[in-house]
């Protein structure tokens, strides 16, 4: 009798519906699957202690704050380069990027977070889409320059902005 019960238990566990095994996919993972840069999305959200327990608006806020942090750091990098720049065309390109990054840090991200918190997500999507576009605009400024010193950070700002815009779009 015991062997029968034991066997039944093992048998039924083996054939548990596949769905329950997939319950282990977190909200971060399923959300990030809808974004254009899955790995970047997952690492950004998981690196925040509040990430694993956040809902979608919460993940959007975490992501937006990561964009702001990265953009702020990149802005510092740009102003540092400006101090040393001697070539006038390089200076112009850097100055333009200061404007673009100011827009991201002072306007796009704060507005987007406000929009998500208050429940008008289209302004959140618009803010992060603009942030991605500001990063693209900065890259264009360097098309005729021999080097693009902030290329790596600029790409992260762009890609992460696109990710967060996607996440907020889930709320529309």
């Amino acid at each position, binding site marked *: 009798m015991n062997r029968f019960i034991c066997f039944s238990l093992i048998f039924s566990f083996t054939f548990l519906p596949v769905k329950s095994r997939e319950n282990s996919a977190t909200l971060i993972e399923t959300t990030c699957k809808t974004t254009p840069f899955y790995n970047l999305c997952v690492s950004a959200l998981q690196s925040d202690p509040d990430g694993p327990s956040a809902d979608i608006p919460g993940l959007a806020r975490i992501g937006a704050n990561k964009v702001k942090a990265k953009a702020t750091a990149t802005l510092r990098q740009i102003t540092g380069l400006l101090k040393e720049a001697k070539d006038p065309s390089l200076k112009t390109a850097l100055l333009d990027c200061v404007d673009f990054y100011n827009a991201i840090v002072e306007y796009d991200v704060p507005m987007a977070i406000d929009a998500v918190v208050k429940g008008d997500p289209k302004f959140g999507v618009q803010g992060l889409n*603009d942030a991605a*576009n500001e990063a693209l605009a900065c890259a264009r400024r360097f098309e005729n320059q021999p080097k693009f010193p902030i290329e790596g950070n600029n790409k992260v700002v762009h890609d992460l902005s696109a990710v967060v815009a996607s996440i907020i779009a889930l709320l529309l």
Partner: protein
Amino acid sequence: MAKSCFVGLCLFFAVLASHGFVELQASHHVYRNLETVQSSASADQPYRTGYHFQPPKNWINDPNGLMVYKGIYHLFYQYNPKGAVWGNIVWAHSTSKDLVNWTPHEPAIHPSQPGDINGCWSGSATILPGGVPAMLYTGIDPKNSQVQNLAVPKNLSDPYLREWVKSPKNPLMQPTAENRINASSFRDPTTAWLGPDKKWRVIIGSKIDRRGLAILFKSKDFVNWVQAPTPLRAAEGTGMWECPDFYPVPLRGRNGVDTSLNGPSVKHVLKLSLDDTKHDFYTVGSYDGSRDVYTPDKGSVESDSGLRYDYGKYYASKTFLDSIKNRRVLCGWLNESSSVADDIKKGWAGVHAIPRHIWLDKSGKQLIQWPVAEIEKLRANHVTLPTKLLKGGSVVEVSGVTASQADVDISFEIPGFDKAELLDPSWTNPQLLCSQKGASVKGGLGPFGLLVLASKGLSENTAVFFRIFKGQNKHVVLMCSDQSRSSLNQNNDKTTYGAFLDVDPLHQSLSLRSLIDHSIVESFGGGGKACISARVYPTLAIDNAAHLFVFNNGSEAVRISKLNAWSMNKAKVN
């Protein structure tokens, strides 16, 4: 993609050169009192409007609380007093005698109660019996929930209604554990209407997951509101319904009627703003006032693929009954297509469209919109043209008007349809079709139309045009607004817009009217059957350096049966 555009442009110019660059001669113009038209542009503000509504600076969005009171039009609107992006939202307020010139007042509604302490969002005016205006609007409460509040004028003898007082009972409608309304998706109350039981009804936009809803509330006294057991209407997969509008239109004629009217002489229109796509779409149908059920007519498309007020940049629109002129008027918001960095530099963002008179088409299947006639008093320097055949490959300049601040109305007749391309049955998305077949893509019958806000050498231009295809049993007219070469500044959104125009070019002339205003191109096809608005930011085609052309990049000649163009005088918009 850029390469093929370049090649296309080269071919276009080659054809141009071979046909000769034909310019309208001065003798063909009829000048009447050549007036100096004041332009709004200054060297550092080339994009501010001459006659479209906008405040002196900062961010605006939705028009709110539209109404008439004691012979004066009132426009309230979402406004950020602190900057050029959305935020810190209050109800700014302007009044007008003519829907063209506006006088600003102090903001009418700003956060002051728990019900709106975190924001005073959109809402609508209802004129109560006795002529008393009442505003229902969405407030953001201390928990950041969306709730509905009531405000009434403080002093009814002030014709400008500058001050408003809020009900101490606010919020009057809010999400609760019982009603399970989504606290971040409950906003934009409409103008209320009276049912046969003498109770007020209002709808509020909402959603559950991706199901859009128009939640219905009823009230006897305009203060105590009870949710109806079912929404007025809902639809799957559309996402959030913002800025709903629900109103009757007469079957015949162009008059407006009271929002509470119902019966065999009217149809009803339910309009929604889709958060997901930022398009305003509507259906025409019937409203059962006793059961509070709205049923769109058979064949209606209740989604982003349905009928839109405008197939371009146009959102959060709202109608009101203009009791002065006995018409229903539509006002909408056009946000910027520029980058936020550029908006911060220029210090402002957002404009409103010219108010449109709307009425039901005689087919009963769609609405017609036309800029209110009052705007025509701004016209000056009338330029006209005798009937002319526009050969394939021509570009003809229209001189004598300020091309950056103009009103142009042109009609085409088609002498022959043999060269019209076949419409592939899979081409059902007009926006996509216009993007793939822009103005520089030569065609059989078309593209032909206008090049506005164009630089002298055409390196910048916004093309508004028609392209005619041979469809199954009839000819199909595609109307496009092509912004792809509107500006050399790459930081702008230069998306192309398109719509199918329900006009039979075999039996009717094809008309196109464009209102041009520095960074706005508002176009009306077929006398208002399809409207496309766009925001553009030329870097060369600014003020006196802007030009206006008529073009035909098809192989078939078309006849310009009528061309009227005017400079537009500056209006006092703020």
